[in-house]
């Protein structure tokens, strides 16, 4: 499996580690525990198909990446820097 890091180019997947769903970008604003927090930390759609998740290029540039891919075929559809994605969604 290969992931094209926006900074480093096409690299073998062994250079990256996976965290989880893009949900992690949307940290709830609640000060105390809430249903949104339960959702954020625990509940997942867990799709069999296209999803977006966060990967860390630990053996490379240490960028966090938002990767759009298919969990059934492992096709990588799109890769962008997580910080760009985060800035885009506020």
């Amino acid at each position, binding site marked *: *499996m*290969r992931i094209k890091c926006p900074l480093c180019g096409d690299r*073998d*997947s062994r250079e990256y*580690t996976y*965290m989880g769903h893009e949900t*992690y*970008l949307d*940290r*709830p604003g*609640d*000060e*105390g*525990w*809430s249903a949104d*927090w339960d959702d954020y*930390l625990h509940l997942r759609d867990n799709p069999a198909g296209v999803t977006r998740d*966060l990967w*860390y290029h*630990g053996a490379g540039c*240490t*960028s*966090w990446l938002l990767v759009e891919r298919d969990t059934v*075929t*492992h*096709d*990588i559809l799109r890769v962008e*820097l*997580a*910080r760009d994605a*985060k*800035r885009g969604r506020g």
Partner: protein
Amino acid sequence: MRIEGYGRIDRDTPLNFSFDARNFQGFKGDTLASALLANGVRLMGRSFKYHRPRGVLTAGSEEPNALMEIGQGAARTPNVRATMQEVFAGLEAHSQNRMGPLRHDLLSVNDLLPNFLSAGFYYKTFMWPRAFWEQIYEPVIRRAAGLGSLSGQANPDRYETGFAHCDILVIGSGPTGLMAALTAAEGGADVILAEESAHFGGRLISEAEELDGQPGPDWVAEMLEALHETGRVRLMNRTTVTGAYDGGTYGALERVGLHLPMTPDLPQECFWRIHARQAVLAAGALERPIAFPMNDRPGIMMASAIRSYLHHHGVAAGRKVTLFATNDDAHRTALDLMAAGVEVAGVMDSRTDAQAQGDYPLFAGAQVISTRGRQALREITIRQGGSEQRIETDCLGVSGGWNPTLHLTCHMNGRPVWNEDIAAFVPTEGAVPGLTPAGACNGVYSTSRCLSAGVAAAGAALQAMGAKAPEMEIPEASDSPGKARALWLVEGKGRAWLDFANDVTSKDIKLAAQENFRSVEHMKRYTTQGMAPDQGKNSNIGALALLADATGRAIPETGTTTYRPPFAPVSLAAIGAGGQGKAFAPQRFTTSHEASVARGAPMIEAGLWYRPSYVPRPGEATWREACDREVTMVRTHVGVCDVSTLGKIDIQGPDAAAFLDFVYANMFSTLKVGRVRYGLMLREDGHVMDDGTTARLGETHYVMTTTTAAAGEVMKHLDFVQQCLRPDLNLRTISVTEQWAQFGVVGPRSRELLNTLLDSPIDNDSFPFMACGEVGVAGVAARLFRISFSGEQAYEIAVPARYGDALYRLLVAQAEALGGGAYGMEALNVLRIEKGFITHSEIHGRITAFDIGMDRMISARKMCIGKPAASRAGLQDPMRERLIGLKPVGAVKQLTAGAHLFEEGAAPVAANDLGYVTSVGFSPTMGHFIGLGFLSDGPSRIGDRMKMVDHLRGVETLVEICDPVFHDPEGEKLRG
């Protein structure tokens, strides 16, 4: 026997080898199988279950019978296919899976009991009496199972792994593959041509075919020359592509040195990861057997294998050969043998309309219904029309047609498609993105069309890459695959084998169907068909056909098992070459490592690092003596210890303070320049991730420390917070763990020691507790932090790593001059327990700030990672296990880490379990054992007596629960 004028072996290089301690001679270019056949050896192994005598069936890696052990001692390799092992001088081979000599295997008694050993019999018995399964039945089964045996020792051989990159990977070098490779190279692509055999050319080396009017092998040699001329083709022979993976990644095993006598530097195998933008699969096809009664005797082999041994090795597999076929192609064997002067006693073709292609006895519409000759075939019985006839023969070639070698196309969940015309499965288009099957592996069986297919496939691959497909000339070659008709099973008396390697017969398949194991996956698991070393290559389709028949379905409806990597078995030493011995993980050494080793300090693993356990002095006989002395030395004088392994993260930027407030539970934006603060870091789920300190060296410059264990995790976390949560914050972080060598200078004389080295001396006012700043040491710019993990007056001094060794030696020398010295991890641990400081023994991943009494450190004035989750009700329950100290007060004065805590009078069982001990040490300062642990409602129990029970070590004692801080609870020593 050897035939003059045939074979591509080097008759000028004879090689001596042995099989089962008998000496034989072969030639360079022989395989073990061809050399044994040339020497008249037919009996090569014993089958798995029934221990029937077996000979070689094929001439390739799909060989199910002739599996042997090669080599001796630690270098012994089991289950080597005799068809793939090239002969070298001094090769030692042994047959396997027998009790006694090969000719008289005592376990062949199993062959008398086939009806009782049928598929799945072991699921229905061996259950009574209960104890017998493990005591008697299972050990017997295990001893009978398996084929070869491991030596049990670490093998001394070398293995390698490698990465290779290319534009187009061509898999297989028969006519299809050679044309594909040349086309690709002519089209400007960088090509890797991978070929499983030692020789290039595929079947062309094993046939009497002509291309462009010249013998196949000569055409192959020309093609290899042409490929070399392009300068863009990397030829990798002896290289099996074993798996197709995501993103154009292929695994491949190269047999680097297996065909040569062992020498220390020669790698045996190399496991490759090949990344290819496009690939062409030109893996050919494998001939399939026919299931007929008693079809497994030595001397019964694939018709195409007979041709391989003849043309490739110059060996006639028998003197009086017969053939049993369902197709025209197999008749070539008769023609080729006759041309070589070998007698062909008859061709049995199951098709009633079969035509003879030469002057050999043809029995059209005939089937072989039985065979005789236990140690070697000597006779077959055929049925033609209504009558039966016996024919004397010592070699029967079988051909039930061909199966495209499409395995790689199924490695990514693809399923092949049944093609009724050739009665075989063919690949599904696009099953592996970027891999184009062509030629025989795609169901194309004529040489001419294979050549064109190779060109077309490479052309498509070039176009997919955005390049142009070149015009290629297709050589003249045979264009007739011949006609074929499927025959799966000949009914008759006696067992008919499907899976030779696992001894699965047609009766087993029928029994599976009878017992309702109707799906092909159930049949396979119930009978074990397809689960042997040949991975079903010789039996999958035949078994599937039988199952379809037995369950009244057509083959496509019955389905097919899928194929998974590896295509052919790969030694673990090759795939795992990066892991043997120390190479498994990097070793990280501090700058003081050599100095510690020179002192005789035992170095122990701390994650990937090595740190000294203790630094012994002459006369100290045990580690405890050294440790006790070091603890006292630190508390009364001064100690020096290397703390470089703790993570150090440099943080700079206008928003650094805000960032620290977000990642730490406690406040950091109030930290002044020149000060250090303890920091507690939570995970977002509210549990403690790590603790450490952060020093403010400048207005917008901080240095964070982490524990050794969590350094990597914290760094990744900080990157996550910056990039994924707070890209609005303006700061940068970077790991500087390896850039700075850092040493603890600890004890009442620590300042005194430092002042002998610092360019400008310090005192308690200029550098109070928790101060930090830049200092000079012998003119070197260093950093000084006044922090303490021991509770004594203490500092940590950091210099750029290149000065680490020198500074350490200097510090230790100065310490010794002041009555102190170097100390190690054991003492470090006792010192911190004496002060109730926690490590990852306490913050083991399930601990909250509340549990360690630090919940008030979670600042109420700001948000931080983990704060909302930490407030969940379940994490606030006072009855949770919370941090306490303990000391022994019973007769037994020992504490053990891992022991559990109970009420004094309670039985030590789960229902009464109230807590556990995490860290213990003998405290020379207190004069007894001390420990830390977690106890339900712990802080409320201080002063109580409880029972500590360690079943594992047989230690039970009374303990008193106390405050975790044992020594100097007011912290006076810290601030002096």
